[in-house]
């Protein structure tokens, strides 16, 4: 389970898990309380005027016609101006800290596509989907790009967000301060499964991270095909295909194996070859009633992973 956003942290903010978070929260609290003071001030005065100068008889005139006071105008122009300039400098300073990564930051490549996150660890040739595993207390620089539309990488606990664009690299960096699991969202609207384009940030202690690296990332060697398939399903397929008959962008996997399916190329029995073809060449036969929206997983999934997905689908009767 990821760390809860609502129940942990302050009244407003989720718990802090990066070096930026405390500073951001102090700035937020400062503006919040400043606003509360001004707001209450404004409306106490308004309420006072409304009560004190309320019209009691129909012919009651204004007590006096006071129509301008330049000193007052200057006051309520210059004081707010000074305050917002303070906020501007403060906000920009902390933003600079967020945009300039330390030179020793560790690079991880992030690739976004409809609708999942892919993380590549260049030095170790490890690729993961959905889960971003990082060591604690280490600056990490994410180099991001998108394979299709714009997505946005958002981790509330870190207080970072950055759009991931097609045909251009964007970067964001952070240093996690807390071991744990945190929610990753896609924050830029990207279509049907936008709200299911989730991921997990897994922050490990430095020792555990070394171990994780030595094992070559998420270990799959000893896994049964079905378990491997379930894992691949969760990171790659679940945004669009349900396993309980509930409607999503694509057809459900429940009861799919062996079913006679109407497709753009006629009726097909969903056997191993059809399932494999649908994974590597999804446009070949499109199930009637569903959009032609799937991308190919050729080159993304290894053969054993495709085998696993097919075995997993077989278990969903």
């Amino acid at each position: 389970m990821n760390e809860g956003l609502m129940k942990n942290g302050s009244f407003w903010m989720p718990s802090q898990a990066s070096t930026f978070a405390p500073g951001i929260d102090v700035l937020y609290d400062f503006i919040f309380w400043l606003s509360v003071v001004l707001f209450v001030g404004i409306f106490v005065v308004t309420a006072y005027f409304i009560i004190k100068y309320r019209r009691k008889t129909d012919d009651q005139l204004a007590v006096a016609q006071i129509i301008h006071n330049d000193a007052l105008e200057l006051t309520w122009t210059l004081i707010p101006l000074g305050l917002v300039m303070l906020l501007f400098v403060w906000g920009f300073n902390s933003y600079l800290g967020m945009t300039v990564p330390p030179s020793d930051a560790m690079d991880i490549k992030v690739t976004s596509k409809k609708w999942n996150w892919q993380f590549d660890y260049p030095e170790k040739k490890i690729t993961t989907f959905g889960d971003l595993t990082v060591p604690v207390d280490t600056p990490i620089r994410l180099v991001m790009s998108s394979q299709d539309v714009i997505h946005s990488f958002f981790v509330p606990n870190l207080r970072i967000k950055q759009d991931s664009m097609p045909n251009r690299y964007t970067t964001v960096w952070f240093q996690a301060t807390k071991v744990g699991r945190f929610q990753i969202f896609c924050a830029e609207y990207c279509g049907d499964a936008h709200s299911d384009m989730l991921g997990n940030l897994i922050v490990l202690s430095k020792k555990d991270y070394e171990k994780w690296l030595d094992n070559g990332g998420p270990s799959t060697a000893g896994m049964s095909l079905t378990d491997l398939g379930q894992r691949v399903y969760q990171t790659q397929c679940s945004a669009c295909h349900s396993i309980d008959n509930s409607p999503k962008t694509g057809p459900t996997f429940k009861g799919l194996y062996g079913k006679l399916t109407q497709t753009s190329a006629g009726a097909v029995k969903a056997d191993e070859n059809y399932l494999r073809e649908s994974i590597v060449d999804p446009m070949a036969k499109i199930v009637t009633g569903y959009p032609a929206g799937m991308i190919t997983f050729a080159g993304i999934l290894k053969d054993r992973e495709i085998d696993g997905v097919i075995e997993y689908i077989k278990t969903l009767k």
Partner: protein
Amino acid sequence: MTTAKPNYLNSPKGILSWIFTLDHKRIGLMYLVAIAISFALGGFFALLVRLELLNPGKLFLTSQQYNQSFTLHGAIMIFLFLIPSIPASLANFVLPLQLGAKDVAFPRLNLWSFYLYVIGAAICLYSMFAGAADTGWTFYTPYSTTTTTSVISLVLGAFVLGFSSIFTGLNFMVTIHTLRPPGMSWFRMPLFLWSIYATALIQVLATPVLGITLLLLIVERVAKIGIFDPTLGGDPVLFQHFFWFYSHPAVYIMILPAMGVISEIIPTFCRKNIFGYKYIAFSSVAIALLGFLVWGHHMYISGQSQFAALIFSLITFLVSIPSGIKVFNWIATMYKGSIQLKSPFLYCLAFLFLFCIGGFTGVVLGTISLDVHLQDTYFVVAHFHYVMVGGTLMAFIAGLHYWWPKMFGKMYNERAAVIAWGLIFVGFNVLFFFQYILGTKGMPRRYYNYLPEFQALNIVSTVGSWILAAGLFLMLGYLIHSLLKGKPAPQNPWGGLTLEWKADSPPITENFEEIHIVTGGPYEYPAATKSAH
């Protein structure tokens, strides 16, 4: 049986006399009806969206239907309601009256602008049934150039609506320049006219950019010429720059007229001359000008240069100052007044309250490093609804109640109006306040599915939408009742001093029987005690 005195509503008669009317009052009324229908439609989609969000996952809409619903809600509310709301309906009616004029400068252009609105609305309506777009009202590329839904028709609708807006702005600008009555210098104009003038500046200067952008989008989709889509060699960030170059100033097209309405109503119900006339007038112009230079604050995390972000943040903070000046001056106007808490004034108070919350949270979002966390979350959703609904809609309703007796010659039930005001005010806050917390906690916007821990506040928000809807339905009810059975309105029910209150209720077709000569400011109310200014 008494024969009604001839007025613009009953003479000339016949449906053709309405279809081909050049009377600004009739055109304003037709706009009012059209805008009310659009608002109802946009509100219907809002209720659908809120209902679906009662639980994570599916309640009754598929994800695509949900995405289409919020797209239509946004597009309809922005292009068909908020932008034309006050200028095209209320100002169309009031502006020539406040000038003591017979009509706007170009009555035919005014009618054409109305029909462009109808054509644009019809295209948007067609789009709803032709595979409604699912891009969000922002049409971000490359999503909008690659989705299979009917983006082109909705974009075309917005394109046509843009011209309607340009023509209205142009018309009002020329009218204010040329048709002021003898004695009405610029600084003797009602402040509503200043705000409409500032609005017109933006309509005329910014809207063409939207037109060009939307046209380029259509060209890219149809002819596959790479402008915004990177797979064709285009640049998606360019689209965002173009889009917000219009759509940020458009926010001021929505809020400036609202501020103008507030500046009219507060003096009348306080029997006070407005405090700081010139400061309010010039802050309208300042907002209009600075508003052109802040579009990049929608794009802090889009990958634009950090130097650009710096400049945009700075100017964003500056543009908050004139709004603050207005608020302070409005409140100072109440000082030593004779304050009557009638429904138009109550809506002004609601405006002040909600607009201030929207403004303060706008300052939070203008702060770059906070915006990184809050961008694209429910915090932003709550913020712009506080400004657009809490600001523009409240002022629109305030103005509607203020000028209703003038428009229709009928009074409405004040008691019902106060109850509706209470429902709308409470419902609005229940609906949107908790979205601020959802946002700071990290719930992204445009989410069909959400984490179970966000459900409680989403339920509260949805219940709020029902309270708000109940208040609006009650309002519709007593306004219709007023048309059918309302008491006849006197010429000047609130004791206003601007020229529209010197016309009959409802006015005659020519507005006035004589030319009014203006000899002083618009709000020169007497005082009980003689004191120096």
